[in-house]
């Protein structure tokens, strides 16, 4: 018997209201994901067809093939590099915006977010121009006497371009996490003898860790799943999970292998979320 009269009815009402979106989620997300999983157990025929039989061949390849291991390590490594670079570059910007006031602050926020209004493809092509050997950043560096490294059509270019493209996400996440910051805390630290650097590392930065964690999660995940930028800036030399999935699905037409790699990426994200959850719990 319900202790509270009407409790059962209100629960049913809640479920009824949730039903449409659950249905959408089921049709649009769960079922395709299950299909993807099923696909990973299908046989890939030479020539690109999908066989009828079920097989573990794709999963065996995934685990044993050196190339796939390299893909995973590459993807994680490159994405970590991008995440760290984005954090280091975004933090000062976010801090500056946090301390700005009024109209100037709003202008800065708009400036930070507006690149997101442009498609990633356009922004990546912008980087192709900036990083190209002739007339781009390297020629500028050479002109002032530094020897510029090759930054186009290789891993360096991918990291540079993708870091900048993902920075708005990091900045916005950091700003969200800066809510706990109070200028009084920095003043208190100063009166207690903390130099500006000590005040930053002992007070400001620890307080912003939730925002840092969120930003890193977002940028890491977006980085691993990014294939447009690596394809355009990588010059066919940068092999990541995302680009391989694209190649297998679109060029080689090996959908089963592409599906298998996709599931791998999903598992990777699951792990990352677990790590994130633990980190956030530890921070509180």
């Amino acid at each position, binding site marked *: 018997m319900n202790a509270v009269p009407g409790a059962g009815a209100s629960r049913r009402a809640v479920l009824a209201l949730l039903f449409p979106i659950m249905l959408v989620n089921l049709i649009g997300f769960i079922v395709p994901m299950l299909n993807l999983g099923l696909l990973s157990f299908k046989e890939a025929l030479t020539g690109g067809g999908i066989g009828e039989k079920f097989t573990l061949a794709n999963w065996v390849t995934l685990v044993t093939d050196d190339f796939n291991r390299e893909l995973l390590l590459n993807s994680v490594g490159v994405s970590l590099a991008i995440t760290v670079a984005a954090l280091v570059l975004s933090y000062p910007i976010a801090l500056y915006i946090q301390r700005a006031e009024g109209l100037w602050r709003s202008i800065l926020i708009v400036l930070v977010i507006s690149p997101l209004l442009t498609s990633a493809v356009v922004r990546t092509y912008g980087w192709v121009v900036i990083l190209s050997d002739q007339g781009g950043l390297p020629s500028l560096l050479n002109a002032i006497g530094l020897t510029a490294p090759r930054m186009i059509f290789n891993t360096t270019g991918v990291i540079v371009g993708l870091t900048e493209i993902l920075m708005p996400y990091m900045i916005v996440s950091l700003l969200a996490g800066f809510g706990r910051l109070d200028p009084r805390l920095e*003043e208190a630290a100063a009166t207690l*003898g903390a130099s500006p650097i000590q005040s930053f590392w002992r007070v400001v930065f620890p*307080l912003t860790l939730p925002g840092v964690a969120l930003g890193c999660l977002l940028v890491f995940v977006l980085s691993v799943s990014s294939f447009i930028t690596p394809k355009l800036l990588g010059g066919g030399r940068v092999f990541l999970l995302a680009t391989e999935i694209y190649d297998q699905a679109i060029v080689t037409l090996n959908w089963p292998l592409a599906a298998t790699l996709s599931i791998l990426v999903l598992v990777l994200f699951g792990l990352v979320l677990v790590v994130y959850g633990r980190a956030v719990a530890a921070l509180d």
Partner: protein
Amino acid sequence: MSLDAIGSVGGSHAPGEAGYLSIEALSKHHGAARSVDSLSLSIEKGELVALLGPSGCGKTTTLRMIAGLTPATSGRILVAGNEVTAVPTHKRDMGLVFQSYALFPHLTIAQNVAFGLEMRRLPRVEIRTRVAAALEMVHLSGREDRKPSQLSGGQQQRVALARALVIKPSILLLDEPLSNLDAKLRDEMRNEIRDIQTRLGITAVFVTHDQVEALAMCDKVAVMEAGRLSQVGTPEDVYERPANPFVASFVGRINRVAVEGRGNNAVAFQDQLFRTEHSVIGPATMMVRPHRVAIGTDDGARSGTANSLRGHVVRVTYVGDLLQYDVDIGGTSFMVEAATRGIAAAFRVRDAVRLEWQPADTLVFGAAP
């Protein structure tokens, strides 16, 4: 008493002879506006001095300049003879208790208190000992591992105090530390802070808008108005011998009447003459403390040299320890306070009464003859 004393030097020092904490012609400008205007003040070692004034008078700005959190536009600040005006905050060896306590939310109580000691690179053992001692001093032992959000306002305030004191600063600054506490707690903390300050002999500056606090706690009170010092003196000086009408009405309750100075220690009001301790000529202000006024039935008798007014009671307010009478003395209201003696009000509304007070209790401000 003298005229409005602007920028008076406190204590018994003449300008140029500095105390332990010396402020000289300190100013803060924002364009044309001056939030602090050429303020000079000298504070002895071990003194607790209040910066008292209404909001916007510049007291907090002055405190922040002493701490180095707000840069001074001009003027000097000296500690033990050394100029610190250009020294950054973290090198000034001052402790500051903020109005909002500003405890580090991500650190435990013990870590908060230990912070300043860690900045000074003291050995870990010593830090632990001193933190324990500081927490005991503010009666918070046993709560070391709590976070600030788990403590009440009063407890947080005590942590803030411990944190500022544990570093044994040369100067302790307090920015309205009691205003976020409820009345009972405020009184308790007031005494605790005073006790600790005296025991440690630490020089302290205390910003407040509450004159009761200032009078109760401090060795000296510096009253500020619109960026300037109105008067500096002991609580008694400031209460009994206010330098101008502003100080007189800000510190404690007081009656204020516009009168005509006639010289010869007399002023005129409502065709009556009143005796004063000083002579003034022309338009003047007469002020009397409500509790220095005796209220009696209007039976025509006057007692000797007392100043006297007649009127009738307009309102009676009972506040437990006092009875407050608002008396209409012909268009102006005069407040009288009398201690209750456990009996019902002696007078009621519309009663005709006679008010009397001594010339010695009559303050008058105006132009000297």
